[in-house]
Structures are given as C-alpha cells and as structure tokens.
C-alpha cells in the first residue's frame, strides 16, 4: 500500500507538515481558520523529531501485522481489509493507551483533550496526505513499497 516516507537529508525542520496535518483534520480545513477560530485545535497525527542538523517527521506505518489493532482493548483500532489503512474509531476509543504501548514506531499520539488516540489516516477524506502535499522541500513522499535513498 502507499505510505508516507521521509527523506531526512532534505527535511529542513520547518514543521509545515504538522501545521497542515492539523489543518487537514480541523473543522474548517483552512490553515488560518484552523489556528485562529477553532476553540480546540486538533492534535497533530504525526511526530516530528529534531536534533539539529537532523530532523524528520514520522507517520503511522499502517503495518501489515499492526500490533495496535491486535492489542486494542475496545476494538476501536481497525485495519481496513481493502485499503490497509489503520484508523481509530474515536467513539469507541477510551484512551487506555495500549496502542501507545505496542506501536514500535511511537507513531500514535495521545489526544489528551479528548482522551482518544490520534493517528495518521493518510488524510482519508482529502485523498492525499496533507503533510506530503505541503512539504516545501519534497522531503515527504507518498509512495508504494518504500523509497530508494
């Protein structure tokens, strides 16, 4: 399946991926409105690591054998059998953080305001991950089967 991969050599650490991840999962889907008008800004669904000069963002790997899906105590975390996308049904999630315990990528973020797991859904609604679309230096790539480095 198509996933988001990072070329850390060309990441400049601008954090626009995070900004647009938040925007993409906001009510208004507009960067200014998302940041200025929403009473509670959405939790980002990606992780940014930075230790200058190296930086990169990390998104859910949508693992074939996803441990978060198998470990979820409520059944909220599911992998779509057709698309392979792993999503969290936030109506079912109780914020027990068992997925945080088992995700070897540390790619599941705690939305502590809503006490639910927050994770990359590959911008299912938009069709293309906003982090990739808005990366100014093309450090993020949306591709099938990994990238060559």
């Amino acid at each position, binding site marked *: 399946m198509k996933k988001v991969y990072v070329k850390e050599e060309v990441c400049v650490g601008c954090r626009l991926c995070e900004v647009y991840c938040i925007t993409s999962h906001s009510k208004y889907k507009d960067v200014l409105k998302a940041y200025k008008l929403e009473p509670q800004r959405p939790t980002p669904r990606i992780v940014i*690591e930075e230790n200058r000069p190296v930086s990169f963002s990390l998104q859910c*790997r949508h693992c074939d054998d996803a441990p978060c899906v198998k470990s979820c105590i409520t059944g909220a975390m599911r992998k779509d059998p057709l698309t392979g996308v792993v999503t969290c049904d936030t109506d079912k999630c109780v914020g027990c953080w068992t997925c945080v315990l*088992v995700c070897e990528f540390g790619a599941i973020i705690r939305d502590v305001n809503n006490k639910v797991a927050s994770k990359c859904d590959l911008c299912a609604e938009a069709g293309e991950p906003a982090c990739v679309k808005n990366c100014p230096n093309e450090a993020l790539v949306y591709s099938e089967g990994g990238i060559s480095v």
Partner: protein
Amino acid sequence: MRIVIIGNSVAMVGAVEAIRKYDTSSEIVVISDETYHVYSRPLISYYLGNLVSEEKMIYREKDFYRKNKVETVFGIKAISIDERKKEVHLENGDSISFDKLLIATGGKPIIPPVEGLNKKNVHTFIKMDDAKKLKEAAKPGSKAVIVGGGLIGFKAAEGLHHLGVDVTIVELADRILSTILDAEGASLVSQSLQNDGIKIITGTTVDKIIGDEYVKGVLLKNGKELEADNLIIAIGVVPNVDVVRNTSISINRGILVDNTMKTSVEDVYAAGDVAEGYDMLVESNRVVPIWPNAYMQGEIAGYNMIGINKSFKGIFPMNSIGYKNTNMITAGITNPQQEEFEIISKIDHNRRSYKKFVVKENRLVGFILINDIDRAGLFTGFIKNEMDITPFKKYLLNDDFGFIYLPKESRKAKMLDLEVV
C-alpha cells in the same frame, strides 16, 4: 473440518479472524457459558464507573458471528473433553465433536480460604456479570473494601471511586501494583489515589469476613477491623483449566503450549489467560494474562489449526493502565533484584513523572514509564526485537528520545522499510 473454540473472548476473536482470512469453508463453533456478544473484559471497570455504556463494550460489530460464519453455543458450559474421541461434553449432556479444538477459557479469580465468603455483597471482578452485580450493590456514600491492589483491584478502585463509593484497598505486598511497579513508582501512583481519598493498607490481608446475611466488614490479619458494604476479592486470576482436568492435556499453572499454541495433545490448542506459553524474557513458559497476548496467541492458534504454520516468538508482560490523569506503561522485567541488571532511571516529583529502564547485556529487558508515557512503544520494540541499545543507551532518559538518537542506518531501516545490511 470442524473447529471448536471453548471461550468467547479476545483469543476466540484472534483465532476466528485468522481462520477466516484463509479458510471460509471450515465450520467454527464457539461455546461459552456467558450469553453476551463478545465484549471487552478490560472495560468492565469503565462500565462500573459509568465511563462507557454496556452497548459500547462490544469488541466486534454485531454481525461478527454471522459474517464469519460462526455457530454459537452460548449459556452452556463445556465441562469436559474426550481428546481420544475428539468430543467436548457440555453441562446439558450434549457433545460436540471436533477436528481441531481451541481452549480459550480464560482465567478465574483466586478466592482465599477465609471465613464468611458466602455472605451477600462479596464480589469478584473479572466478568461483565461481576461488574453488573457490583454496580447494582455499590451505592454512593457506601463503603467498599478491595482485597488485592493488583491490576484488577486498582481498576475496581477507580470505578468505585467514580460512583462515589468510599474505597479502601488492602494489599498483602508492601505496595500496590507490585507485579508491574517498583517502590518509587508505586508510591507515586498511590499518592494520586490517596489524594482522592482512596485508602491503601499494605502488608496485610483479610482474615475473616464479618456480617450476617450481608457483608458488614472485614477483620484483617493485622487485627484491624474495617467496615464494608461491599467486599471485592481481587487477589488475582489463575488459568481456568477445569475443562481439561481428567484429560491427558499437560498442565502446569496453565495449559502448556508450544510456540504454535498446540497443547501436548495433537489437534488441541490453547490461547489467552488459560495458556502457559513461552516468555522470551524469563526464557521459560509462563502465563501472561493480558489482552494483547490473548489476541495474538488466539491468532497463532487459528493459523495453525487450518494448517498455516506460524509460530510465536514469545511474549512478555506489558501493561498500560491509569487512574484518572495518572498514566503508566510498563513492560518486561521492571523490578529485578539481581546485580546482573543495570538500572537507568529518573524521577521528577514536580512533574510526577518516573522513567526506569532495565538493561541486561546491552539489551533492554523492561521499563516503567509514569506520566511521561508518550512513544513508549519504541521501548517495547527494543525489547521485542532484542536490539543492541549500546549506541543510544545514554539518551534513553531524554525527553525527546526517538529514532533521531539511533544510528542513521538502523533508523532508516526501520522507518523506510529497508533491510538492515
């Protein structure tokens, strides 16, 4: 082929989902003494505390059995197995024959031999019916004594506190959550409970239950007496091996299984809290009664029952548990006493955070994270993959610890799905 599964919880789901990935024709029969649609056992404390409704406790959608062509035999207990004739005997006198059998009967509560157990409002707390009975009986302002400050007692305390019940935990060890936390960690967590008025009495246990028809209190071994309207026995669980007694299926504490979840008898498998499988950290068989383990063991059993050879590398204990805003994630060996283990730890009383890593021969073998729990899975991964942590060991306690501290090659291999060269 007919596959029979005794038990209707998560190990069953793991098995059914694995089987149906490749085999849509075999018959699957699930037997359970409970009558519920498969539900989340760990949510019973949330249900008790009114944090989730009963409808929200279903673990798989309503059409799970139909969609997966599973025949259910609910409300009837399987009482014995004839492994030679390949039959399961039910309490109503019926028998069900099988080609492959999965025993996923879970655990049952440990009941201490004390006087007065037959009084009303003495509870256990592992199943839905236990939670319903307790919720019915626990009135706001009433008093409850929980015997056992382990994972079950801890979550029962939280649920009861949410109901406005005055809660006292009585724990035989010197601290609560003694199987997953050390003294520092337990002290930090205990404070959160005590700040809410939950009382914790350690180093003793119940000697006698007081009351006539109903529980009125308990007499502790230390001579102290406590009033109680409800008494919850939460000492622990043992594998529910009743159904395999008088068979040739080997049992130690639980039903012994190999790394394909097969028992000592051909065509008979076991998974979940009833099974005793390989623990890769202690390097011997052990019962690890946790939800994720049950799913994964059930899944492995499912594959092997339909002839797909998959094996389990092993499991180790891991838990994510919390009380209100105090969250903790622990895994593996968390409180070793031997000198061969190196301990790397940091406690921050202002932030109420604690991190502890247990290292053995350059491998991470366990950790405790309290409140700073984000990205805990990185560490679980290091344990599971038996990674040499030497290159980044000195950064483990960093607040921003992540892949960035790993050597570039191993980081890229992991993050880009590349093979490590």
